[in-house]
């Protein structure tokens, strides 16, 4: 008997998809703006509750949770497999989406087409949760496409602006090339490993036995293992990681980001920078650490794959360092407030990639904690910048001068977010950067910490530029009638600012109870991930 909570967890993405597609139909009947807004907020609230249930369940009851669609066992049907790692990221996605949906009510109140906006927003949440929760590499492709297509649409939401359309087109072309390349990788994976289930692939990279044949035929039906499978694995890993690095905007695949993120409405920029790039990071981590066991290369059955995985890790460190440095240098040169913040996203993704490339426990903790901290702080930064833009109506830092003096709450939250991303203690960004430094020093690569310092100091002066621009500078023109926006905007800002401080102050507890278990689930306990899925297969076969 399956625990009913499993249904709730497994059905989170499908429920969200259904909610998304019901909205246009319902808005044909109820032609009210208020209805679309209430519907959007309640749908994201439902998704947030479901992700919270999943988080609670995997942390306190049982991990991982495997949900089989239509009760078809793993290699035949699609499974969703939630462990502590994706359960945690799912919770972050749910909460940030809820806050953004609330914020959007006020931010877009003068725009038409709000029902389409919320349709795409909920659709993107469904896609993201699908990418996170899925236990099937092909389903990951589908959900990645759902996320990406809704994202292209939302970037082009201001359809009367030239730069939005241009950015959306560029983003769409680059993004669809990436997903196509990932599709080729899927073909190679299926050709090499004869399965698309993540747990089974993870098992096959560990042992020469095919679990499925092993179950039905005892020890009679071993598959003939050829070493050339390793070559297929290498090709698949190369193509898939390239595709994910486009989604995650790691150098040299980051070009689309500084165009796409500023062109979208500010709440969407918050989601794109805070969460969407993290989906790419999640996929990289899942492929490298769960499917190809990068943290413990000794369990890999094939020595050929060991070289491949190690080379990939080095490449991640080098590319992450380059991302951080290049984004840092270009960040200071920007005079568009949102473009500057978008470059900072590339920099922080560089840090996360460096943490992932280290393949030590500390490095992974740093990467995962930084993923969450950056999601919170960057969402806050974009939403606060959006509040300035909403009130004044321009994105140019020079034209915003002195506005911050009249908007104290927005300015305070903006400064908290900026200090958190620069990494000042006791904010959350400091804790994860600290872990990253220690991971480098512990591995004996202390000179590389200079890269983090240099890029952080670039980031510091870039943020000081905004703080100077919006808060400290003398107002150039008379500012009349400018004040903090309504609580619909400021309450999400204050919640996120509180989260920034809380994730910093409570970090000893959070690291111990939340981050470390998720690292263990991601990288150090492959048998657990595999056996939960394959147990269902055994039961289905009556074994």
């Amino acid at each position, binding site marked *: 008997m399956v625990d009913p909570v499993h249904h709730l967890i497994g059905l989170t993405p499908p429920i969200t998809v259904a909610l998304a597609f019901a909205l246009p139909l319902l808005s044909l009947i109820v032609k009210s703006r208020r209805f679309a807004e209430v519907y959007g907020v309640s749908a994201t609230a439902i998704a947030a509750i479901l992700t919270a249930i999943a988080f609670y369940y995997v942390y306190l009851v049982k991990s991982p949770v495997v949900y089989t669609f239509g009760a078809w066992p793993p290699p035949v049907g699609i499974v969703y497999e939630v462990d502590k790692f994706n359960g945690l990221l799912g919770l972050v996605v749910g909460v940030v989406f809820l806050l953004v949906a609330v914020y959007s009510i006020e931010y877009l109140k003068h725009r038409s087409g709000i029902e389409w906006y919320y349709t795409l927003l909920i659709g993107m949440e469904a896609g993201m949760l699908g990418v996170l929760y899925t236990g099937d590499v092909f389903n990951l492709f589908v959900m990645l496409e759902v996320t990406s297509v809704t994202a292209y649409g939302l970037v082009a939401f201001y359809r009367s602006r030239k730069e939005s359309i241009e950015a959306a087109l560029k983003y769409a072309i680059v993004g669809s090339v990436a997903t196509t390349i990932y599709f080729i990788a899927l073909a190679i994976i299926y050709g090499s490993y004869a399965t698309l289930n993540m747990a089974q692939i993870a098992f096959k990279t560990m042992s020469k036995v095919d679990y499925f044949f092993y179950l039905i035929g005892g020890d009679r039906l071993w598959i003939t293992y050829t070493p050339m499978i390793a070559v297929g694995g290498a090709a698949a890993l190369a193509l898939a990681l390239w595709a994910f690095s486009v989604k995650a905007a790691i150098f040299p695949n980051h070009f689309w980001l500084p165009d796409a993120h500023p062109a979208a409405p500010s709440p969407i920029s918050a989601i794109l920078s805070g969460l969407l790039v993290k989906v790419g990071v999640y996929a990289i981590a899942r492929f490298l650490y769960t499917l190809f066991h990068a943290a413990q290369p000794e369990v890999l059955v094939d020595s050929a794959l060991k070289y491949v995985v190690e080379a990939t890790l080095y490449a991640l460190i080098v590319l992450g360092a380059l991302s951080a440095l290049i984004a840092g240098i270009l960040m200071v040169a920007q005079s568009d407030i949102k473009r500057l913040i978008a470059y900072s996203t590339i920099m922080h993704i560089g840090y996360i990639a460096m943490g992932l490339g280290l393949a030590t426990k500390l490095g992974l903790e740093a990467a995962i904690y930084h993923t969450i901290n950056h999601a919170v702080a960057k969402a806050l930064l974009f939403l606060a910048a959006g509040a300035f833009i909403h009130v004044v109506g321009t994105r140019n830092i020079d034209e915003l001068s002195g506005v911050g003096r009249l908007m104290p709450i927005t300015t305070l939250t903006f400064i908290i977010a900026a200090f958190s991303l620069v990494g000042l203690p006791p904010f959350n960004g400091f804790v994860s950067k600290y872990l990253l430094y220690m991971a480098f020093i512990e591995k004996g690569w202390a000179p590389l910490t200079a890269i983090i*310092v240099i890029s952080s100091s670039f980031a*510091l002066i870039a943020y000081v530029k905004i703080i100077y621009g919006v808060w400290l500078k003398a107002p150039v023109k008379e500012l009349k009638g400018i004040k903090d926006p309504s609580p619909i905007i400021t309450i999400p800002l204050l919640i996120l600012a509180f989260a920034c401080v809380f994730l910093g102050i409570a970090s000893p507890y959070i690291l111990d109870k939340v981050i470390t278990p998720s690292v263990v689930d991601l990288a150090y306990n492959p048998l657990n991930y595999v056996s939960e899925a394959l147990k269902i297969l055994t039961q289905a076969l009556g074994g």
Partner: protein
Amino acid sequence: MVLNEVLSIIVNAFVIPGLIFIAITTWLTQWFYRKIYARMQNRIGPRFIGPRGILQPIADFLKLLFKEDITTIVAREKEPIIMLSLAVGSLIALLSMLPISPYPLYAENDIILAIYLTLWPPIALILLGFMAPNPFTAIGTSRYMTLLIVCEPIWLLSILVPVVLTTRTGIAPAYSLFSASMNVASLWSNPLAVIPLILALYSIILAFQCKLMLRPFDIPEAETEIVAGPFTEYSGPKLAFITLLHDVEIVVYSLLIVWLFLGGPAPFTLTSIQGILTLIVKYLVIVFLVTWIKASTARLRIEQAVVFMIKYVLPVSIIAIILATIIPI
């Protein structure tokens, strides 16, 4: 138990190495370097207040503190003091991680925490410069930020050198400012370890000079050129706090170098008279060195300074940290 914790925090914050200790040290240090700086320039220096002018720094501070507080119509009124107080607080917090504190706060891997605490004063100075909008403050502050980009990585790498070296000898807690300061003295007898230590000492003293805007890196506040750089608009109590922060920075960073590189009171212990005397002598040597460089050099241009740091200091610190990670101990 809780009482003990509270007591340790209060002692750290207000007695040693807190406000009382820092006030006395800052006062004497300022007198010392003003005196020797004057001698190097063929002047006499502070003279009238107290024996040999020893009370002059206090008199200056009090005079500034009780002067009129002028804030221009475009400037911020109280935020500069908040930032300056936080910066002084961060430096005292840094001192309470050193063995000089009776209740030192330390843990494994706390070195990055110490380095990030030293980031507060530059941030305070940058925001301070921008809080009083003026063409001179803008030029000065932007120069200071440019210097920081090259000076921060050097600062980090050179501080890491003794910490990495002492940790490799196997002491616990690892990568801690406290344990590194307690054990660095034994490294000076190892000829292989001396090389990275000397290279790091060279680069940290130049980074010190750069962080504190002392000549030849006084480009941000270049007196004859842009009035007083970031501090152009400040007078009265705010200027008093600025000089306080500047002197506290000199004291804290000199103490940091003395402990982390020269081993503090080694070869004696801190509880003996000889130990305290050794500590004071080493401290005065560092202050003297800094003042000497300040007195005997001329100001560089900003791009000269950046190129100098990138060409002649950053590579040295990188070589030092690479040596520190690979040499056999």
